[in-house]
């Protein structure tokens, strides 16, 4: 038996053989034949046997040789099946259980509320499963493919790892546009069987629709809220029309423009426009301020004149004289006065002197 065993040199294999031969021949035979057991030769034969037996048990149960020695019996390596009544093999039973379980699992389907499932009977589409618990024929005959149909999927274009693609507007300007397309599955069977790559198709259709729609607008329109709303609406309709023509089974829920900016290369010029707008507004505001001021002053002066004139009309001469004297008083009270009495005398006017004096007298006034 040792010769037949390709792993014959292993301890476990030898032990078995020796176990049979040792019993009659005693420890003499065991010593040299088993160099892996140093204690075997020196100790008592009883102890040696016991020890070799325990190692044998270990190998039998855990070692690689264990299962093989049992001669192909059923059950795992560390597990011995209880005897089946009638002494028959467990193999068919286990096979039936495994296959039965598999068949059962592949024929019970729980479709979640957001999902639908398509059933293919031998490859041919037979029906769509709505949410709930469903039974189908087991796997090779019927297969079920479940998909989230309620969930709205969002695609960002350009994707975050992509470089911004400039889009040409109708007036041959370029705009840096990024947008999101939201869609979900309208008809799962169409979605599954009509298009080779529905998700890629959505992206391409979106790009084509967006470029076509932006090309219908001027650059300025793409920046305004109104223009954007129109573009979004048109892209959505265009996409839906195209996808329906493909029979894609996809519902485009919405298209949102996230950003519409001038290209980076010319952004300064665009900023300058808004600066110019602010400058113009500032100039207008200043002018309005001036206007307010001027008008208020005019109104005030006119009002004041009116009031005085009213009084003047009641007593013209007196008022006139009063005003004259009052003004003269105010003026002359604050100024230097020289009165030249004599006729025909040319007075010497010490003008520098007067100025010096006045400067000393009133340092505040210059």
């Amino acid at each position, binding site marked *: 038996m040792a010769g037949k065993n390709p792993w014959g040199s292993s301890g476990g294999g030898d032990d078995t053989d020796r176990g049979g031969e040792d019993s009659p021949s005693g420890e003499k035979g065991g010593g040299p034949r088993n160099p892996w057991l140093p204690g075997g030769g020196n100790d008592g034969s009883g102890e040696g046997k016991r020890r070799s037996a325990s190692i044998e048990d270990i190998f039998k149960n855990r070692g690689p040789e264990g299962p093989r020695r049992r001669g192909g019996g059923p059950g795992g390596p560390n597990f011995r099946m209880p005897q089946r009544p009638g002494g028959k093999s467990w193999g068919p039973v286990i096979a039936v259980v495994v296959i039965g379980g598999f068949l059962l699992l592949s024929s019970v389907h729980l479709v979640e509320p957001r999902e639908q499932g398509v059933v293919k009977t031998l490859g*041919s589409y037979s029906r769509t499963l709505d949410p709930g618990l469903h039974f189908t024929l087991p796997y090779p005959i019927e297969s079920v493919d479940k998909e989230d149909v309620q969930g709205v999927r969002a695609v960002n274009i350009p994707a975050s790892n992509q470089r911004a693609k400039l889009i040409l507007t109708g007036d041959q300007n370029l705009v840096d546009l990024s947008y999101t397309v939201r869609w979900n599955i309208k008809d799962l069977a169409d979605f599954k069987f009509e298009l080779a790559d529905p998700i890629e198709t959505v992206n391409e259709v979106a790009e084509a629709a967006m470029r076509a729609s932006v090309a219908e607008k001027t650059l300025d329109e793409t920046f305004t809220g109104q223009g954007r709303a129109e573009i979004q609406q048109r892209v959505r309709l265009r996409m839906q029309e195209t996808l329906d023509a493909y029979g894609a089974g996809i519902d485009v829920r919405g298209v949102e423009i996230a950003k519409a900016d001038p290209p980076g290369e*010319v952004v300064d010029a665009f900023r300058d*426009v808004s600066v110019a707008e602010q*400058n113009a507004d500032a100039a207008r505001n200043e002018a309005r301020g001036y206007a307010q001021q001027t008008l208020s002053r005019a109104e005030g002066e*006119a009002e004041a004149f009116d009031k005085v004139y009213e009084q003047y009309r009641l007593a013209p001469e007196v008022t006139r004289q009063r005003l004259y004297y009052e003004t*003269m008083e105010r003026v002359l009270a604050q100024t*230097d006065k020289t*009165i030249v009495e004599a006729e025909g005398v040319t007075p010497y006017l010490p003008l520098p002197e007067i100025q010096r004096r006045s400067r000393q007298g009133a340092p505040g*006034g210059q």
Partner: protein
Amino acid sequence: MDSIWTKYRWAFVIAGIGLVALFLSAYVVNEEEQVVVVQAGKPVRTVNTPGGDSGAGLKFRVPLVESLRRVDKRVLDLEMRDEEVLSNDQQRLLVNAYARFRIVDPVTMVERANNTDGVRRALEPILNSALRQELGRRTFQAMLTAERGTALANVRANLDREARQYGAEVIDVQIKRTDLPEGAPLQSAFRRMETDREREARTIRAQGTRDARIIRAEADAEAARIYAEAFGKDQDFYDFYRAMQSYEQSFARGEGRGESSFILSPDNEYLRQFRGRR
């Protein structure tokens, strides 16, 4: 056991052969594919073709004699490379289009193009040239916008005619991108956008200045009207009244004004009473 085997040996053998034959001859056609059954290199029938009566499901063939060619039944895409198209006003535009097609005649397809990739290879240059030809008749502006619809319909029709030879039907052709080519065209577009904005900014500033002037002038005019209305009631009195204000403004001492000195003659109107004359 032995007795059963010897008794029913032939039955077992026949059953076994039958089973093997069944496995060899049965095949499943999926919903998304169509099948051409080929016998000695010659297509004999099709399964699950668009418009055909034999649908997907479990099918049988003569084992070993008939072989299967599976062909996609779904809508396939044909992607075009970026192509520079010259408009009839000599402007360059980088165009990228795609076509969607479907194999409607798998037998022709298998015979002439072998597989769907072969169809793609055959159609791509046709798509490119059809598109170039069709767009090249248009102005740059028309390439971008309005006429795009009819141009694409023509391209689709052209491409479809060619595709029929390969058993394919072109469903749709769409321009995915129209870009200005890198380099000079792109730079000149940027330059134009820039100057456009500069002009706009200048216009806005000038408008601001103009508006400001108008507002000021209007205010001045209105003020003049108010003055005239008020002062026009009595020109003589206004002259006097305004003179009084003006004297006070001119001669009275105040912040930032020069000193005034008067040399008065006793004949002065103000000093009239000073002399006691009447």
